[in-house]
């Protein structure tokens, strides 16, 4: 493997039968499920996702995409928010439940050659794909600063992971129960002033990512965003999940979910899809 995540080529996706090892609520409405998934665990790159068939023969037929939060040995960990019928069924899956997934999928985070200091900006469940990235950056000796925001302290995710690997963690909550009162974008703005950064990574609600991308651009720092779209196949065939970019329509499932923020043609806020699956 070279010095850059992009030189570690993503392997072909495969179907893998996986078994739930643990599944617990970790914050209000948010669960962490651990799967025994040796192939995926060995191959997944930070920022990639898996497409899980949560139940067969039910009234909902499509798989659900989830980014991989962390890998531990032959196991993958997924943070999910209970928002609809699919994630509700996932929340009810106890240890021993077998599902199948397609993965690893998508284009993940890239670590630019020579990057010495990275800022990770997480909004709510956006912490999910940033977990593996924070660990990978730390492993490579890249200094990590994290800005994480949530409605309240109880809904801050991956705090322990970030505090373990990051040099600096700044938190923001809407209700002021932890860290700065207000939005994580405010924290991001001051960190961009404060720190000598080489790259910004962000994931969270799309309006938030758009602001972070603009802040990074204003500071002259490259920024990568991870965009969420409703998708059917997850492998590039159905064209459900397209994202407008300066290079035309790109598929979030294979060309993304991580995009160079400068290439994204942002859609107006009211067009950001509601996720209810």
């Amino acid at each position, binding site marked *: 493997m070279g010095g850059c995540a992009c030189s570690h080529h993503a392997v072909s996706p495969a179907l893998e039968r996986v078994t739930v090892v643990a599944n617990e609520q970790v914050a209000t409405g948010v669960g962490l499920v651990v799967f025994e998934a040796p192939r995926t665990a060995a191959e997944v790159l930070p920022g990639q996702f898996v497409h899980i068939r949560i139940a067969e023969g039910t009234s909902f037929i499509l798989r659900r995409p989830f980014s991989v939060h962390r890998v531990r040995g032959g196991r993958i960990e997924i943070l999910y928010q209970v928002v609809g019928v699919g994630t509700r069924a996932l929340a009810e899956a106890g240890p021993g439940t077998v599902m199948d997934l397609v993965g690893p999928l998508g284009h993940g985070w890239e670590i630019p050659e020579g990057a010495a200091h990275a800022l990770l900006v997480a909004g709510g469940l956006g912490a999910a794909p940033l977990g593996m990235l924070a660990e990978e950056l730390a492993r490579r000796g890249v200094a990590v600063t994290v800005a994480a925001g949530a409605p309240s302290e109880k809904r801050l995710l991956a705090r322990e992971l970030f505090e373990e690997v990051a040099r600096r963690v700044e938190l923001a909550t809407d209700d002021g129960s932890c860290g700065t009162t207000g939005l994580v974008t405010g924290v991001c703005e001051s960190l961009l002033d404060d720190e000598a950064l080489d790259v910004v990574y962000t994931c969270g609600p799309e309006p938030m990512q758009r602001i972070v991308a603009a802040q990074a651009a204003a500071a002259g720092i490259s920024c990568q965003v991870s965009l969420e779209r409703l998708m059917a196949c997850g*492998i590039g*065939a*159905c064209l459900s999940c397209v994202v407008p970019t300066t290079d035309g329509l790109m598929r979030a499932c294979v060309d993304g979910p991580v995009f160079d923020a400068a290439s994204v043609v942002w859609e107006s806020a009211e067009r950001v899809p509601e996720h209810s699956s």
Partner: protein
Amino acid sequence: MTQSVDMSVTLAGLRLRSPVLTASGTFASGREFADFIDLERLGAVVTKGVSLEPWEGNRGPRIAETASGMLNSIGLQNPGVEAFCATDLVWLAEIEVPVIVNVSGHSADEYAAVIERLEREPGISAYEINISCPNVDAGGMAFGTACAPAERVTRACRSATSRPLIVKLSPNVTNITEIARAVESAGADAVSLINTLLGMAIDARTFRPRLARIVGGLSGPAVKPVALRMVWQVANAVDVPVIGMGGIADAEDAVEFMLAGATAVSVGTANFVDPTSAIRITDGLAEFCRARSIPRVAELTGALRT
């Protein structure tokens, strides 16, 4: 007991090694599925719709999941016939599988122009004319919901090629057999059905439609009874072979379509759910015949006992 089943079928003069095809728009040109299945075991690859110029498709959200199915309003996004010839056809040329190119247009002339361009390419076994897409404003379904325009498009395509011509029919009509007869009389060598059913989904919490385009095409197991009924009606109304599709998710579904009169079947939405679906269904179909000592899968076609 281990005697092998003859899985080949003859469709519009084409000898196919299996009756299981892929439904247009659910399989791209097959490349994305090559990690999961052996494309050479398919009866044919039916490509995503190709138009004369590149089409952007509709804005998102483009899909919505519904009970036992999904709505889509992709809008036939495709890079146009030139790019299709330069990339997808080149890639498919390396694969030993019949290629059926799905063709779209805004006018009868445009359909014919796409075919004229494709006529210069080797390695195309047949065309499937899409007169049934519910997700484009001009053309698409507008051609497939009345006899006269359906006939006109079919005739224009017919005069552009001597390759087999399949016309894909819309279920969004009062009487599908009239349209089937119209395209048969205009020179179609086969008909395929059903395309998606026009539908809609609303998010009660936001008071908004779930699709940006408000309406879209329903597919998946939810549509299967409607599709079976229409395949049965059309198979009894025309002499040309029928390719049946609509919610096929397992081998028994495929058997049911053949019993209703389909010569071949297409797997669509199931490709999204399980990328190995088409081959799983092929294997299951062979096993179904073997277990019942049916020597040729083609014997299932129209074998419904009423």
